[in-house]
């Protein structure tokens, strides 16, 4: 428990900042609370998102991420909390908040019965753009999101990635300064996911503030300036990816065996290791540096141990996540060689 107190410290600092510099915050929430019946979904959380940054709310399914987005995007009213988005009070002036934000939800918010182009023009009309201006925006965004060819087809015929791109394009018609992205890559294949990441980075370079929820740790790591881990309706930790990684014990080298006898003898020979009898794997603490690796390899050679597979595991957000969200029964190391550039990998272990 003492660890959790320590982890909350960065948040507390930030929350102090909220009161003094709230004008430069795109999103500021203090004591955000929401319950459905007697189930508390958000238990008084504090959030501060500086303008022009990407903030990621990370958490397992059912942690309350989507509820937080729904509240901050005026879809649902909070039970309590001092909430400001774009400088406007959510409770007092939701319409001004709506004018400042764009939302792309988990379930794509496109009209499947009409074409992609018609969807764009619908948005232009609802943003009260003039006919010519609306057409110009629509054409420009359809081009930018590689939807020109599909523009005349009903949106219901689009693939998952295309729907998501159309969804974002529709959100951008109104030039929002703050964008909520609720699990924007859930259900997308790796290529579509990477293209979505590119889109998000582009948005940020335009000066837009992004509030991103995700259950993919790597996604938060890739995109977010700051990350908050939401668990059980509370912020378990908040900080940059680096700060969060520093909060948990370091990496290790993992040795896997196929022969139980070899595993047993290695486990006896290398006393200082963590055993995983089921997977026939051993973990040796290591920071993953070349020098340490060489030392370990020398040691293994000296002891006459030859593992069938050796993987180096550096601490990543997976570890932070599992530590903080208390999912201790989930193995916290992948079975395959660590490939930090492969987006799919964390997904598999998280799920």
């Amino acid at each position: 428990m003492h660890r959790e107190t320590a982890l909350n410290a960065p948040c507390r600092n930030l929350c102090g900042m909220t009161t003094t510099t709230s004008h430069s915050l795109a999103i500021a929430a203090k004591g955000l609370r929401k319950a459905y019946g007697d189930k508390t979904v958000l238990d008084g959380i504090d959030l501060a998102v500086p303008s022009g940054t990407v903030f990621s709310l990370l958490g397992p399914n059912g942690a309350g991420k989507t509820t937080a987005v729904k509240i901050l995007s005026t879809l649902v009213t909070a039970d309590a909390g001092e909430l400001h988005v774009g400088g406007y009070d959510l409770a007092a002036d939701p319409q001004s908040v709506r004018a400042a934000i764009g939302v792309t939800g988990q379930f794509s918010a496109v009209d499947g019965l009409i074409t992609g182009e018609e969807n764009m023009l619908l948005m232009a009309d609802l943003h009260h753009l003039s006919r010519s201006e609306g057409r110009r925006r629509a054409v420009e965004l359809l081009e930018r999101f590689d939807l020109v060819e599909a523009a005349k087809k009903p949106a219901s015929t689009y693939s998952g990635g295309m729907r998501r791109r159309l969804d974002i394009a529709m959100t951008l018609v109104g030039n929002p300064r703050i964008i909520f992205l609720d699990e924007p890559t859930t259900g997308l294949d790796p290529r579509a996911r990477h293209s979505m990441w590119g889109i998000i980075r582009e948005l940020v370079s335009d000066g837009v503030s992004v509030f991103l929820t995700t259950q993919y740790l790597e996604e938060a790591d890739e995109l977010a300036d700051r990350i908050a881990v939401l668990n059980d309706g509370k912020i378990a930790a908040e900080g940059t990816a680096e700060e969060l990684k520093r909060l948990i014990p370091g990496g290790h080298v993992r040795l896997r065996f196929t022969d139980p006898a070899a595993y047993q003898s290695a486990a006896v020979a290398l006393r200082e290791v963590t055993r995983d009898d089921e997977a026939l794997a051993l973990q040796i603490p290591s920071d993953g540096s070349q020098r340490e690796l060489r030392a370990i390899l020398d040691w293994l050679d000296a002891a006459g141990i030859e593992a069938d597979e050796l993987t180096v595991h550096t601490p990543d957000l997976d570890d932070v996540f599992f530590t903080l969200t208390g999912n201790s029964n989930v193995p916290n190391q992948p079975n395959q060689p660590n490939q930090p550039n492969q987006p799919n990998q964390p997904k598999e272990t998280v799920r």
Partner: protein
Amino acid sequence: MSAPLAPARPTRISLAVRDSNTMLRRNLLHARRYPSMTLNLLLTPIMLLLLFVYIFGDVMSAGIGGGGADRSDYIAYIVPGILMMTIGGTVIGAAVAVATDMTEGIIARFRTMAIHRGSVLIGHVVGSVLQCIASVVLVGAVAVAIGFRSTDATALEWLAAFGLLALFSLALTWIAVGMGMASPNAEAASNSAQPLILLPLISSAFIPADTMPGWFRPIAEYQPFTPAIETLRGLLLGTEIGNNWWIALVWCVGLAVLGYRWSTASFNRASQ
């Protein structure tokens, strides 16, 4: 439609008109792109019209009173009821459209935009009323084609008939929208809106209410369709309207208000 907007917003009315108009165009685009739904709903009244006139016509005409009534008299008798039934059928489309909308993410998007909140529902309602009128005109054309003629209706009576049809469309549309809001999906909406097309079967649409069993007559006489049908019949054919006109009006206003309150309450409840 009432509270959600800031009271001092000066452009509120123009915002409401503009956004509702956008939503209306969206709904009409749906109807144009997928006409099968609307046309399917037209099948029932047209089929019943042909069935009752050509198959049952000779027998039925005996029941509408007066000796010597023949098939052409029965056409005249049945058409006002068929037109009202057309409205009951067409609004099922509105229930389905609303339910479909509510299950899609697009409504959530609309809710997070700085648009007039009620515009989504207003767009559906106006669109449905326009479709009802178009359907009535289509079915009316079929009726004329098989020999229906209005006897000596004045321009004023035509106007009143048109107004009654529009008002009845509005009332049933709001009820249908409420049903659509309350339904978890399109299928459920279609089912729960079925009574709107079945109710005319137990009205004075096909046979006069006073030929029905005594215990049932009050139900047939005072359900919304009968007074509306009798009023329309009177306007187009010069039959006795009696107190049916104001009963019809009360029903229309009552149903419209009820459906409006029901729909907006469900729409706003979705954001708790």
